[in-house]
């Protein structure tokens, strides 16, 4: 019942806002190239359905590949850090520098180095760069958070480094990693969009390019349609990662369990 209300009230609010929007645009006769009404956006969406969907797929592909690359690299580096203090001290400052430098500023360099003939690779690289740091930093923290008594117990039973990593440190890090993934999923999408904006010219085919192109042609309704698809994509990624989190933690983690059990 409560779940129903969780869904019902936001939906009602959304409908009310759309209605108000439609009414204001009609009542004040706002031109379509300034603010299109929801009905005009829906029409633009229907007219450009195929090209918008192809763009959605292109952006989704960059986002997913970048996300997987960031996940792999972030976890691998966190494991390296957990095994070697020296590696952590040496490399961590550079990871921080990469993180704090705005990606928009690095993106043109990456595009030049990777080359405009391989713009897809450059887009993935830029998006992965944005998503990488939260995964590295959270997983590193998680691997260090293993229960000290369990660690001693495993040592008493003659556990190897590898066994301690696999049976204690990695499971401990899973909730930390999943928390990071929810942030990184959104960041990968933002990274992909930013990269497309920077790449600009006709080489890119994603939703961001669709927004630039529609903007240049003053097709504001199409712009809104592309924007809406981006929002839907972002929410879907977040929901999928939340579902994964629930699935992996449902038996044991405090964050998922109901109190009073």
């Amino acid at each position, binding site marked *: 019942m409560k779940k129903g209300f969780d869904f019902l009230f936001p939906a009602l609010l959304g409908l009310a806002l759309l209605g108000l929007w439609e009414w204001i645009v009609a009542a004040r006769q706002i031109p379509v190239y300034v603010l299109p009404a929801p009905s005009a956006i829906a029409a633009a969406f229907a007219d450009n359905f195929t090209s918008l969907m192809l763009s959605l797929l292109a952006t989704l592909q960059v986002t997913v590949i970048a996300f997987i690359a960031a996940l792999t690299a972030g976890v691998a580096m966190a494991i390296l850090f957990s095994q070697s203090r020296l590696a952590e001290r040496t490399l961590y400052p550079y990871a921080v520098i990469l993180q704090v430098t705005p990606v928009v500023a690095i993106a043109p360099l990456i595009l030049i180095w990777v080359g405009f003939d391989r713009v897809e690779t450059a887009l993935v690289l830029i998006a992965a760069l944005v998503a990488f740091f939260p995964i590295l930093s959270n997983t590193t923290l998680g691997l260090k958070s293993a229960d000290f*008594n*369990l660690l*001693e117990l495993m040592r008493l*039973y003659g556990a190897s480094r590898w066994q301690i990593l696999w*049976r204690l440190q990695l499971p401990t890090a*899973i909730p930390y990693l999943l928390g990071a993934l929810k942030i990184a999923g959104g960041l990968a999408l933002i990274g992909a969009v930013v990269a497309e904006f920077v790449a600009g010219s006709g080489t890119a085919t994603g939703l961001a390019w669709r927004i630039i192109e529609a903007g240049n042609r003053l097709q504001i309704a199409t712009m809104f349609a592309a924007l809406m698809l981006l929002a839907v994509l972002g929410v879907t990624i977040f929901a999928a990662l939340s579902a994964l989190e629930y699935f992996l933690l449902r*038996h*044991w983690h405090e964050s998922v369990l109901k109190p009073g059990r």
Partner: protein
Amino acid sequence: MSLLTLRQVGKRFDNGTEALSGLSFSVDQGDFVSLLGPSGCGKSTALRLIAGLIAPDYGDVVWQTERPETGFVFQEPTLMPWADALTNARLPLDLKHVPRGEGNDRAAAALARMGLSGFESAYPRELSGGMKMRVSIARALASKPKLLLMDEPFAALDEITRAGLNDDLLALAREDGITVIFVTHSVMESAYLSSRVLVMSPRPGRITAEIALTPGPHDRLSQEFAQAQARVAAALLEAA
């Protein structure tokens, strides 16, 4: 010769605190020895030295041959929250690469001995404090230890649960011929369980009294048990 002898063992922590100084005692095969003392007297440090988790600054820990198969039980159950009871109890076997099927059988048998048949697939979060401690002891038993080191294992449990676990532990130790070194700050518990109580004084920790007792279990309401408790309590007060 004793199973284990500590000779003039000393340990200083990194912050300079002297945890143990001139600690000497020996433990015979089949003994149930309690280390009794106030908080901060170095009991846990002594246990970790015996487990080989830390090394003494001076003095020796001498074994009759080598350290036998050893189980360790902490004050907290110290279970893996992501693993069910069977997987938790199987941990020492998994670490020693015992084949999965045999490991499952031995872990299930250890759980059954602790009265946890039917709870193999329960997660720690679903178990009560006493049941979690039983899983923790089952984990120690799964590796068929000859020596069991216990660091205030029942301190966080209620009196009735604690009494039940005391009796189960005594029966197990006797059946399997396990030598137990049991750290506690409870006079009653040490008197109930032990064949010998070693009283420790705090900062730096050393043995101030040794009391030989009739091995348990006892009638908790008997005159004899009351006297045994009184002897232990007197020695503890003298040490303080």
